[in-house]
């Protein structure tokens, strides 16, 4: 790679992926958003305000933590955790919502909508809406409302209206459908904060750009602490925003391996999983072309994962491009393996990871022992596990 990476093109294409695949009714809103985004990303005042919020409201930079005990236990590469779990609201999601909400305010929008799966993006959105005094409606699949009741309560406390979506499979994809329907109906005053690097252009690039702060920090912190770049980056991939945030600043560093970890659920061979990059095929959903879980008729297949945040049949188009181009590699981890990662980090380092991030931890347990002790893995600890206490306790037969 001699030329500097400069994806996507002006219409949001990453090779054949990405683009703008929406109904005509949404086109003006997308065009308006794209011009505002292009303008403000180069506006010194906007960037300064964003930097200030990242530092004082989100709590950035998040630490890059050398997990020495776990490293020793696994007996291979040095493991560094990018501590996005320490951000305000407990995950990387806030990096993006702070950015988009500032953009919404600049565009004069008074109402914020968002979709959410595990509820982390919903909480992060409700949080910034509360702070900026904006009306906030969160769409959440009815199944997710039931299994993430703690986050539903948090969103309501923050003043958001949570709408339980009863259509389709009643999970994240259906919440996204409903949010798109709301947006098209209320285009004039409403800003749709998409939570991941998917959707029509400019969302995949915009969300990546807001999340890339974590990758830039990790790069500088690794150079400062270890004196060199890492050998491998590991991050879980649902829609793929935490992974894109970590990978993006390293794309031109060809020696740094990038590994995305998808949710294999009960196992790829069972068909009950959420791993479109590993076991899906290209198609079009929610405004972009990407790898999808769809059947031979093109209907979207219902997904499965222990972690609601990875329970999505698509993936950001830039990941599809990075896969096809060979720049990144995508692997998968089952529910059971993820639980192994969850317990390992909890017991070895005293850090309880989110079930989503636990997939990345589980892959590190496989990868680290195959590497040398002078090599470095940075793994994104994208969120903390507090929201998963009910799920975990229930698995252990305990009612909280």
């Amino acid at each position, binding site marked *: 790679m001699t030329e500097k990476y400069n994806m996507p093109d002006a219409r949001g294409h990453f090779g054949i992926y990405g683009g703008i*695949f929406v109904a005509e*009714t949404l086109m003006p809103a997308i065009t308006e958003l794209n011009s505002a985004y292009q303008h403000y990303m180069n506006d010194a005042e906007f960037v300064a305000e964003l930097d200030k919020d990242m530092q004082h409201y989100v709590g950035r930079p998040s630490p890059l933590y050398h997990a020495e005990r776990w490293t020793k236990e696994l007996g291979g590469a040095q493991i560094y955790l990018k501590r996005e779990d320490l951000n305000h609201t407990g995950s990387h999601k806030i990096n993006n919502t702070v950015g988009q909400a500032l953009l919404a305010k600049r565009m004069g929008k008074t109402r914020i909508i968002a979709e959410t799966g595990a509820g982390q993006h919903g909480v992060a959105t409700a949080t910034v809406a509360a702070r900026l005094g904006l009306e906030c409606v969160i769409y959440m699949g009815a199944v997710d409302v039931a299994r993430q009741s703690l986050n539903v309560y948090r969103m309501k406390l923050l003043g958001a209206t949570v709408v339980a979506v009863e259509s389709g499979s009643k999970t994240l994809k259906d919440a996204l459908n409903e949010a798109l329907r709301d947006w098209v109906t209320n285009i004039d005053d409403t800003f749709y904060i998409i939570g991941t690097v998917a959707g029509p252009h400019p969302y995949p690039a915009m969300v990546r750009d807001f999340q890339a702060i974590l990758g830039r920090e990790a790069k500088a912190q690794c150079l400062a602490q270890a004196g060199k770049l890492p050998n491998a980056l590991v991050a879980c991939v649902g829609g793929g925003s935490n992974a894109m945030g970590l990978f993006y600043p390293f794309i031109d560093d060809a020696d740094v391996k990038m590994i995305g970890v998808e949710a294999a659920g009960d196992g790829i061979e069972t068909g009950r999983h959420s791993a479109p990059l590993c076991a899906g095929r290209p198609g*079009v*959903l929610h405004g972009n072309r990407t790898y999808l879980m769809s059947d031979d008729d*093109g209907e979207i297949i219902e997904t499965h994962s222990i972690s609601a945040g990875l329970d999505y049949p698509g993936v950001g188009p830039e990941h599809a491009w990075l896969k096809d181009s060979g720049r990144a590699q995508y692997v998968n981890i089952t529910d059971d393996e993820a639980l192994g990662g969850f317990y390992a980090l909890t017991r070895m380092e005293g850090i309880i990871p989110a079930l989503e991030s636990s997939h990345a931890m589980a892959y590190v347990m496989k990868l680290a022992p195959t590497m040398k002790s002078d090599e470095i893995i940075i793994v994104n600890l994208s969120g903390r596990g507090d929201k998963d206490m009910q799920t975990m306790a229930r698995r252990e037969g305990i009612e909280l």
Partner: protein
Amino acid sequence: MSRLAGLFAELAQKNRKALIPFVTAGDPNPDFTVPLMHAMVGAGADIIELGVPFSDPMADGPVIQRASERALAHHQSLRTTLAIATEFRKTNGHTPVVIMGYLNPVEIMGYEKFADAVQAAGVDGVLTVDLPPEEAAECAELLKARDVDPIFLLAPNSTPERVKIMDAIGSGYIYYVSLKGVTGAGHLNSAEVETKLTEIRANTKLPLAVGFGVKDAETAKIIGNLGDGVVVGSALIKEIEANLQNPAQAKQAIIGLLTSMRHAMDN
């Protein structure tokens, strides 16, 4: 060119407007649709829009979403929707059929195979809701080469530049959605529609079919006076939904509604 250009030319000569019912293929069951299509033609339909059920109908309101879900429960798909069109064509060679759906089933089938299949089924037009003109060049060309019209949407907030884009790439007719938002929503503002249609006509000679918000004879007449065609969808599907235990009654109600619309539009 498909049957659509000839139809609109003929209607214009007679100073009549096209009545265009939309139903979801396979709703409430696969056997219901072909006889319904014939009956709708009998009640005065000029063009039939057949909805292809999709698992994630992002641009549709609750009524058409539920129609999709009912059809999908019977494994209705793009392939079986084309089979319905083929069956219809066996005994009706003149009424244009337009299929309307989402892009993913087309992507999975493959554009060329799709274009061949659509042509073989005797379909006249294809409207793919989430395929805007910027991304549609390849698919539109394949369809046009097979005398199938690629049909595009325009909305109240579409700019004159976008009208020109649709005019360049689209054929058959333009589907103007008269209200913002999803299908089946809101109320009709005829003055607003009239202003916008005049603005659109400045940049295209394609016939304008107007939909989203037509629910009875009165609204059909109002829209018929403004556009070249009147699309009615959710109002028909509501009749199916209200008579799930008795599809024959649903069919009768649909025919009744269309007959009253036809009458109102022609008088």
